[in-house]
Structure formats: C-alpha cells, structure tokens
C-alpha cells in the first residue's frame, strides 16, 4: 500500500462516513435551533410546557436509570455468577426488549394497564391511573431501556472473573459489600457505558412513550414528544432548540463517561 496516500485516503473515507452518517443530522438540529439566534432558542426552552417536559424527562430518566441500573446490575451479576435451571432463558428474556419494536413496547403496557387491558379499569377505579400518566411513561421507558445495563455488564463481569469477589468474601464481606466495594468499582466502565446508553435512550425514547403518553402538554409530554408538538405547531426554532438541548444532555453523559474512563485509566484500571 502506498503509505502516505493510502493513509490520508483512508482518513478521508472514515471522516466522510462519519460526517454523512453521524454528524450531519445533529448539525442540522443545531443549525435549526440557532436559526434565529441564541435568544430565540433560549426563549423556546423557557416556555412553561417546555420546562415541564424537561422536568418530566429528567424525572423519568432518573427513575428509569436508577431502577434499570440497580436491577440490571443484580441481573448481570446473578446471571454471570450463578448457574441455575432456566438461566439461558432468562438471558434471552433480558435481551428481548432490544429486538421488540418500541411501538410494541408501548402497546404491551396498554394491554396490561389500559382501560381495555387486564388491570387498567380496576386501577382507574381505585384512582391510580397508570396509562397516559407519568407511571405509564416510566413503564414504557423501563421496557425500552431494560437490557442496556445488563448487556454491557455481563461480558465485563465474565471477563473480570470472580476472584476478587471471592477474595472479599474470604475477608468477611457479604453479598452487598462484595457488590459495592468490589464488583461495581471493577466493572465501573461497563456500568457507565450501560448507564449512558440507558440515559440516552430514556431521554430520547419516542415510539413507546408516544403510545402511552396521551400527549398532554404540561402533564405527560416528555421532551421528544414536546419537540414533535412544537414542530407541528410551526415552532421550528423552539423544536430544534429542545432537540439540541436533548442532544447536549446526552453528549454531556458521554463526556462524563469519557472523563471517568480517563481517570480510571490513570489509576490503571483499564476496562
């Protein structure tokens, strides 16, 4: 291979692909957001409905990340450290939501908690509506982001092996201490990856949430839904401003991960 030309040609190819496939859409979003200047974009975000959408998104994301991270870690640990009948099936089930359409991810909850579903009518009678309310949005988000933490943790845990955990046990640690002091710090990079994916997906989920949300501004609109509402209301700048904000939030999470990874690297913990 003629070194120099080949190298730069390849670099151009890579950058071309990244540019076309990855960079262009976000650039358009930011361009759309700033079409009328920063001020207009800012104003778009300060609308009460927008603020409420941001709040709801943050809340749902925090809850989904917390719940799925906790249980995801437990599942990854249980599934890699112990063998029991049905373990293979459990692994398949953990992966399943990844291959299910987000629309189905919303639909299934309607089947359980919708008025026409199994328990919806009863719950509503008791005064606890689930669908078309934040709990429903949370459920849809949980379903869609279900596998990420477990998926990224499992190979890492397998790779780590159980020696350090067993060492901790020999020193008198019980399950929780083992998890907290040994497993989690050791698999920090993978956990972060999983949390990042969960966060990004939870913030950005549209299909599943839109089925169960009811699109009520100020109540059940998350940021992605509100973006759609704004866009359909001809408020292009506001819509793109919110989309840009969402992208920035996710990029922030990516950056945090990079930072943590670099510190870990300095500490010699190469994941």
């Amino acid at each position, binding site marked *: 291979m003629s070194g120099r030309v080949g190298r730069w040609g390849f670099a151009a190819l890579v950058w071309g692909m990244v540019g076309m496939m990855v960079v262009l859409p976000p650039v358009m979003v930011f361009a759309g957001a700033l079409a009328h200047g920063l001020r207009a974009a800012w104003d778009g975000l300060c609308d009460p409905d927008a603020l409420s959408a941001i709040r709801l998104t943050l809340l749902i994301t925090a809850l989904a990340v917390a719940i799925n991270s906790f249980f995801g870690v437990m599942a990854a640990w249980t599934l890699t450290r112990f063998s029991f009948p049905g373990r293979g099936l459990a692994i398949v089930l953990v992966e399943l939501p990844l291959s299910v359409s987000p629309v189905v991810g919303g639909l299934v909850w309607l089947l359980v908690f919708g008025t026409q579903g199994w328990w919806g009518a009863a719950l509503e009678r008791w005064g606890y509506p689930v669908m078309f309310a934040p709990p429903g949005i949370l459920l849809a988000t949980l379903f869609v982001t279900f596998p990420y933490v477990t998926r990224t943790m499992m190979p890492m845990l397998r790779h780590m092996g159980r020696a350090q955990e067993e060492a901790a046990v020999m020193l*008198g640690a019980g399950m929780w201490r083992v998890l907290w*002091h040994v497993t989690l710090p050791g698999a920090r990079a993978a956990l972060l990856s999983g949390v990042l994916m969960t966060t990004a997906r939870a913030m950005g989920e549209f299909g599943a949430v839109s089925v169960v949300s009811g699109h009520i501004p100020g109540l059940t609109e998350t940021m992605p839904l509100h973006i759609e509402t704004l866009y359909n209301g001809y408020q292009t700048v506001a819509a793109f401003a919110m989309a840009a904000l969402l992208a920035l939030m996710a990029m922030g999470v990516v950056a945090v991960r990079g930072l943590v990874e670099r510190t870990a690297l300095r500490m010699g913990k190469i994941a």
Partner: protein
Amino acid sequence: MSVRLEHLVRRVGGRPIVDDISLEVETGSFTALLGPSGAGKTSLLRIIAGLDGHDAGCVFLNGARVDMLEARSRNIGFMFQNYALFDHMTVARNIAFGLSIRPRKTRPTRAQIAARVEELLDLMHLPGMGGRYPHELSGGQRQRVALARALATGPRVLLLDEPFGALDPLVRRSIRGWLRDVHDRLGLTTILVTHDRNEACELADTIALMRDGRIVQSGTPQQLRDAPATPFAMAFMQDVTRLPGRVAAGLFIADLPDMRPVPAQGPDGRAELLVRAGDVRLLPGQGAATAWLRQTYGPIGTFDVMSGPDTLRLDALIPPGAARIVVNCALDASAGRVARDGQWLGGAGDGGDSDDNDDGEMTDPACIAPVVANLSKP
C-alpha cells in the same frame, strides 16, 4: 487451628473432581498440596475455604464441623493464584478491607486499622507503599500485599493457591524463604497448593501428593522422595528415566541389550524400570554399549548411550577416569524400581530407602536433563 478433612467428595457434572479425600493438618504445620494440573488441588482448597460446596464428607476446623458455615464466617486467610487484589483500591485499602467492612460494633477505629496496615506493610517489607495501586507494584510486591490482606483480619489458617505461579524465578526463590518465615513467626497453619515439587519440598513439613482428585501419598518430603507409593509419585517427585522391558523368572530384563537384569518379584510379563536420574552406573568393559558424555554436573553426566539398535539419553554417574566416550560398557540400574500398570511390582527395589544413597552419590540435581526414553521411535 487444625484442619481435618474426612472423606470429602465434590462432583462436577457427575465426575468426582475431589474424590474421597481425608487429610489431617495439624495446628502450626505447613502442608503442601502437590500435584499435576487438574489434580483437584484448587478444588480441595476452595472447599476448605468454603468457597465451593461438597457432596459428601466433612470439614473440621479445630475439631468443629464447619460444612454449613459460610466462607465469610470461617476466618480463613485465602490467597489466590493471581492475587486477586482489588485493582481500584490502594495497597493500604486493600489490606484494610477485611477490617473496614466489619459491622460497626466489632470494627476497629480508623486509627487502629491504619496502625495495623502499617504493621503489616512493615512485616511484608513494603514500607511506604500503602498509597500505591496494585498495578504500580511488581509481581513480588503484589504477592506480599495479597498476603498482608489475607493476614489483616488475623486468621489462624492460611490457604495459598500457587502463590508463586506468576513470579520471576529469582523473585520466587527469595520470597519462598520469607513466606516460611512469616508462617513460623505468626504461628499460622498453612496449606499451600503448588505443582512445583521444589517449592513443596523446600517450604512444607508435609506434602500431600494429589492426582485425579485423590491423595496418592502424604508425608514429609523425605518420605515421598525415598519411598514413593506409586511410580507416579516417584516420577513426580524426581527426574526419572523409564526403561521398558519385561519380568521373567524374578528378573527384570530391559529391552536395552546392555542393561544388567534387576531382581523383580511378581508375575512375568511386560514391565518398566524407573530409576532416578543419576542412579544409573556405567560399567566400562563389561558390555557392548557406547556412551558419549554430553554434559557434566559434578559427579553426574548426561550420556547418549548406543546399545544395540537404540540410542538413549540418560544421566549416569561418571565412571572414575572416564573420557568423553565410554566404549564397551554395560549399564547397571539396580537402584531402580520395577512397575507395571502404574503400580510397583511386589517389593522390587523397595529397599531403595534414602540410606542407600548416602555413599556420596547425588540424587536429585536441578540442572539435569530428565530423559523420557522412547525406544519405540524410529
């Protein structure tokens, strides 16, 4: 604290990987579990520690049965082969771990823990390394941190799984003596897993030689070397030459023409002679073999011996005044033992106790080629 195992069995997938093992380890003793890879050494150690369960038999610590006691409650120090240090903690926090996770009531104060860590760092010759991370240490240092960590909670029993496996040979040798020293000084009961016979001989008072999940023989290093219970034990404890042949009328006749017959009890048939490297003598002028001297180690030489159609490399005493080539010689391997189907043939060579060799011959040179004779090869 003494350790007693009674008829321990552990099966994995139906196959017993620990197979009816009984062992008594006395308080304060240093025992080595020695054996080839897959012998079940690690498995046994893990059962003692409580990390794995067993299917039958009992484990006693200080006479009390602990089968149902969780690993974390047995107060046993365990050192893993790869040390299993907590990568993300400093050396000091690694060592302090066992103390710092105690329930509040029994947990020492911070100052006490720090003092204990300092004390252990001193004992392990790791002054001032408390702030480092494991990856900033050399192999030998890591090993010592792992030991310090295992000792921090004051266990009376120490289990070591191939602690020297990953070390440089020089470091390894220097650390061995020090480990024995720690054992003696702290009055520990130590069980060491290794597949290195030198390590076992050097460190342990008692060796339990394992194979296929069973204990083949246990005793002092001397006993294992001088009275190996099986050909396997002999071959594992020392470099041996195996000479194929057959037993006929109370004599072992080697396939090698110039080998002197050796008395052997037992039914006639194929058999083999196991002889320690160096226990063979060349008898110049008494046969038709030719031997080339390749290397010497003191009184011992490595010879290429041509006898009949075969060439065999073996270690033998150098005949007094011998030149590089010894012609027309015979071979005497009567110090060997005759075996068939992995068992000794009744009594033959069993008098071969250590005293036999006290007449100034050497028995177990480190740098001698262990020769696996393969006479059937073209």
